[in-house]
């Protein structure tokens, strides 16, 4: 088990797909709309070593109530831009496409958080700020302090994608049942 802290550096390059890690420090939530704005207006926080969380939380009176991951694949098209600007970790569920796997080579990692675990995520989070609140609760960029968020390395910086490996093996197992 590896404990990671933001800002992230070259230590993420040593991780391997399937490694169990925890992440502490600052994460920035971003979904479809925030990605569009970042491409158009620039990244409104220091992207160097930052972690972006694919999540649209429920926020109530300054507190995170529920903050499970959303499907990362929707952000495929906008993510290369973030990696080019120095973002080191993407957090979400379901993995990303082959283009992102190649983009992360020697640069960063994709970390999977368990789908549906909105209460667990919220229990490890403290809200510290918000950017572009006019995008609405689900789409704004929430700045969140996380304390040992339990994650799995889904795509590493060596070109390994655990989702793709598992899916290929599942295909072979299905064909063996024919």
């Amino acid at each position, binding site marked *: 088990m590896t404990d990671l802290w933001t800002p992230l550096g070259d230590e993420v390059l040593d991780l391997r797909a399937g490694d*169990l890690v925890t992440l502490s420090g600052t994460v920035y939530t971003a979904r479809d709309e925030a990605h569009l704005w970042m491409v158009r207006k620039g990244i409104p926080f220091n992207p160097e070593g930052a972690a972006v969380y694919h999540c649209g939380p429920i926020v109530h009176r300054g507190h995170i109530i529920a903050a499970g991951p959303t499907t990362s694949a929707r952000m495929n098209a906008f993510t290369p831009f973030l990696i080019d600007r120095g973002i080191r970790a993407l957090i979400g569920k379901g993995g990303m496409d082959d283009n992102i796997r190649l983009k992360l080579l020697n640069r960063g990692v994709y970390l999977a958080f368990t789908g549906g675990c909105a209460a667990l995520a919220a229990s490890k989070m403290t809200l510290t700020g918000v950017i572009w609140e006019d995008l609405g609760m689900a789409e704004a960029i929430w700045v969140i302090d996380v304390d040992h968020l339990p994650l799995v390395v889904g795509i590493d910086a060596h070109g390994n994608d655990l989702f793709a490996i*598992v899916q290929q093996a599942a295909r072979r197992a299905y064909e063996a049942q024919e």
Partner: protein
Amino acid sequence: MHDPRNPQFLLAVAQATIRALREAEINLPNDVTEALETARNRETNPVARRELTNICENIALARKMGIPICQDTGVPVCYLTLPPTVPYTDALIQAITDGVRIATTTIPLRPNVVDPCSRKNSGTNTGHLMPYIHVKPGDHFSITVLPKGAGAENVSRIGMLLPSDRDAIGRFVVETVLIAGGRPCPPVILGVGIGSTFDGVAALAKEALLDSIDHMDSFEQNLCDRINLLKIGPMGLGGDTTALAVKVKKADCHTASLPVAVNVQCWASRRATVGIGVP
């Protein structure tokens, strides 16, 4: 026959709807929680064990804090059991709709219901033919809710299969899980409808998700074992548990047809039933 427009009665129906939704969204049924704990204890893959540990911890936290298990609080699917003394009326449907609207702000639920073409959100989780209500006759008046999230619903499938193909059903069910991969938030539960008609088989598949997963017959167990051989695992990250259970419901069908529907349910298999007194 009591007066179906009695305001006290309609209020009780709305309140029962709210209670059922609150129970379903916050407390995962014991059979599902136990199946997830068993899967976690048996799991040999460390990544899958981590995922299942997170899930079990999340279930306990939601219960303790009184908050929804998942931020996708689903769309409201309702099953009414009506005794002979309670007629199915527009007023009854309205009372259930009122319950859903109130529950959306008081639990709270994420407003998920939109117009299918304009995509405009009603903000209340209600709309045209939503909540979706199924009705069956019975001895006692009760409402069961099955809030259904989108991730698993979106990978559900219907097939009109070849009646002479002896493994058509098994292959279709296993293939559905293969195509879905990690998208429906596995470990999943499958509701499988076999027979009936094109429309009827989908309703059977969803109704199968109301059954307790404590027990599977040999046909269901065999399907479940075949799915778990795929090793897709929790969240598609690999592991021994891809499906917690398969539940099947059948109806007779045309001699030239074999309708099969697979309604995929994420691990957060939320359902709750509340009885309603009839004045």
